[in-house]
């Protein structure tokens, strides 16, 4: 049997990876939902076509992340989910609404189409906002004061903006014509809002949580890590320059750039958060070591993980290659 330390770090790392991949992948398709225009059917169709083949699998990363929490850190899972009972329920309602609206909008009677489009957009916004809200409460160590709810609400807006950013960057990469042009402007706007959100969370986090402050400013590692926030800010500025350039001269070749920059931003922010809280899984309460499930059960799971996760990554890449390039109209066959 493997050691508790190894298993805790392995499953903690895997859970973190699943959350990051989820935030990036479902982030862009939720973002597309957030941006869905209600004034232009054709643009809406193109945008939805760009995420059609992927959204199902993207959401599965959320199931994996929650599943890993459930399996590897059951005590933390139940503590967090009971603390977040209502926001979780709101998020689930949002996820359900948008997931089904995606299919209904194409298949239901024409007179209901507008209603399903609005459901898709509203569901995406509700989902993103409640995820940000939960992140905010998590950072505030599930404190129940008005102050922390205010912060959580701001964090909710921040995540809506971040998903809007990566969603519009996705559209820049995957579309042409009107949608492409609109996406460039969306992307630039959300880029600034996201920057403000990132700065806010980065300031509040060490101010509220003493252990976080200690980690960022009190160890030898700090010097190596302090560049993270600055690199992040630099990326936002770089993103803005790239977009300004695209707007003025419309290059087609490097349209993947804003998306790549957004992914880098997500990665840095996420690393910052993980570093802040490690080894806690419930801030200030419970570490990954304390909440670890039975090692023999996790060893049994490990075989599956080692065999299957590479396969999942493999066929996910295959699927993205199949639908490589600019989006074409969505046709069912």
């Amino acid at each position, binding site marked *: 049997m493997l050691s508790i330390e190894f298993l805790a770090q392995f499953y903690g790392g895997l859970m973190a990876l699943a959350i990051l991949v989820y935030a990036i992948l479902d982030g862009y398709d939720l973002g597309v939902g957030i941006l869905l225009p209600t004034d232009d059917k054709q643009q809406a169709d193109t945008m939805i076509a760009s995420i*059609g*083949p992927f959204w*199902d*699998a993207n*959401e*599965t990363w*959320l*199931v*994996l992340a*929650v*599943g*890993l*929490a*459930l*399996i*590897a850190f*059951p005590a933390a*899972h*139940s*503590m967090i*989910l*009971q603390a977040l*009972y*209502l926001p*979780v*329920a709101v998020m*689930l*309602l949002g*996820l*359900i*609404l948008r*997931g*089904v609206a995606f*299919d*209904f909008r194409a*298949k*239901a*009677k024409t007179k*209901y189409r507008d209603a399903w489009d609005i459901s898709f957009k509203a569901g995406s916004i509700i989902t993103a906002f409640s995820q940000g809200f939960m992140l905010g409460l998590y950072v505030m160590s599930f404190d129940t004061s008005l102050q922390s709810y205010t912060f959580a609400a701001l964090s909710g807006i921040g995540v809506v903006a971040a998903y809007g950013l990566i969603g519009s960057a996705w559209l820049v990469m995957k579309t042409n014509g009107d949608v492409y042009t609109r996406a460039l402007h969306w992307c630039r706007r959300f880029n600034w809002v996201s920057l403000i959100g990132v700065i806010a969370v980065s300031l509040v986090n060490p101010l509220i949580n003493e252990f976080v402050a200690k980690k960022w400013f009190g160890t030898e590692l700090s010097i190596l890590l302090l560049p993270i926030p600055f690199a992040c800010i630099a990326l936002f500025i770089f993103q803005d320059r790239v977009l300004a350039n695209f707007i003025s001269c419309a290059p087609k070749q490097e349209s993947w750039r804003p998306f790549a920059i957004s992914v880098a931003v997500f990665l840095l922010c996420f690393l910052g958060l993980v570093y802040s809280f490690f080894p806690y899984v419930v801030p200030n309460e419970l570490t990954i070591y304390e909440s670890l*499930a*039975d090692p*023999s*059960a*996790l060893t*049994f*799971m490990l075989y*599956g*993980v080692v065999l*299957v*996760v590479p396969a*999942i990554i493999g*066929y*996910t890449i295959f*699927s993205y290659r*199949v*639908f490589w390039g600019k989006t074409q109209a*969505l*046709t*069912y*066959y």
Partner: protein
Amino acid sequence: MLDTLLLSRIQFATNISFHILFPTISIALAWFLVFFKVRYVQTNQPVWLRAYRFWVKIFALTFALGVVSGITMSFQFGTNWPGFMERVGNIAGPLLGYEVLTAFFMEATFLGIMLFGMKRVSPRVHTFSTVIVAIGTTISAFWILSLNSWMHTPTGHEIIDGVFYPKNWLEIIFNPSFGYRLSHMLLASGITASFLVAGISAYRLLKDDHKHAPKLTLKVALTVAVILTPMQAFVGDLHGLNTFKYQPQKVAAMEGVWDTEKGAPLLLFAVPNEETRKNEFEIAIPNLASLILTHELDGEIKGLNEFKDAHPPVKPVFFGFRVMVGLGLLMILVAFTTRVVLYKKDRLPVWLLRVLVAMTFSGWVATLAGWYVTEIGRQPYMVQGLLRIDEVVTQVPAEHVLYTLIGYLCLYSLLLTAYIKTLFYTADKAVEVEEYEMNASVRGGQYA
């Protein structure tokens, strides 16, 4: 008085009842699609492709509803039954984990290629993707039914200080009721899907759809129903015997047996009364229950009174069982009648088509009734005989559970209505659109 335990149970039952509707269709419908696609590849007849294209739309919608309602389930364990994972997590966790890893990603990813990739990949890769999706849905059923069965017939574990630890994974996965439950559920899925396909095809024929595709899918669906419905009666009986061995109190509730009896009668109808602990309005066939369960006319059936305070509520189990069996028998009758008439006359009279339309969702009702029998029949335990539900319920305030329950109920009623309406609307569209295509081709136009 609001009670978190009761509300959590209602909420969980609501969520899982809504969820199970869609996998019940999609598990078997995926295999129908494989069949249509493979027949098209073999024969190169466009009618198989049309059948595929029509049903893949319904599959996509069904699958989406299954996915989103399934996500809810993965959160519910933590939000409403935290004690469940704390006590049983070492067993339940890996089983759920294997379901996510080996089934969810595979089906979701290849679904994208199956739905939208036909022009982008070779026909072979497309057929392969369709097969993978079908295998994925079946693997998913494998793991979740393994966990569910273990909760009914737990084996392969040890309990230390109230926490369950795995000892032998093969015994856990292949616990005594697993094989029966898995077969019973897969057959239920096959029957539900075949009545759905038959019902919608019949609906199209009633709308004067003169094309070949609905006739063909009707024939395929009824053939499948004729094969599967009697198999289900057989497997269901075996499953019942297995339950009799491991969960006698559930069978006692199913049969309405209060006092331990030799030569217990089969109750065709009765109203069990838990206050007086007797049945009212009994219509019974003497000795038949004993004969079915013990294969002896005067075999002994343990009564509910032997399990005071540890047996399930009797009425829902008793009536649920009769709904399931009654519908099952009706489905056998309808499947054979329609298939025989179709064989002899090559078409069905209007009244039989109407019967099939009326029975479009009969599989749903029977499956839900069956699940209520087995799950309510497990009460008051979470894990039969070892862990009671009141030990694992959440600490969340009852009002919060009430709010979310109301939210779910509203959304689910809306979605169920929309789903059923969209199904028939898709059929209406198919009647018109393909007609137009065919006329266009007659006039020398081209297929789009």
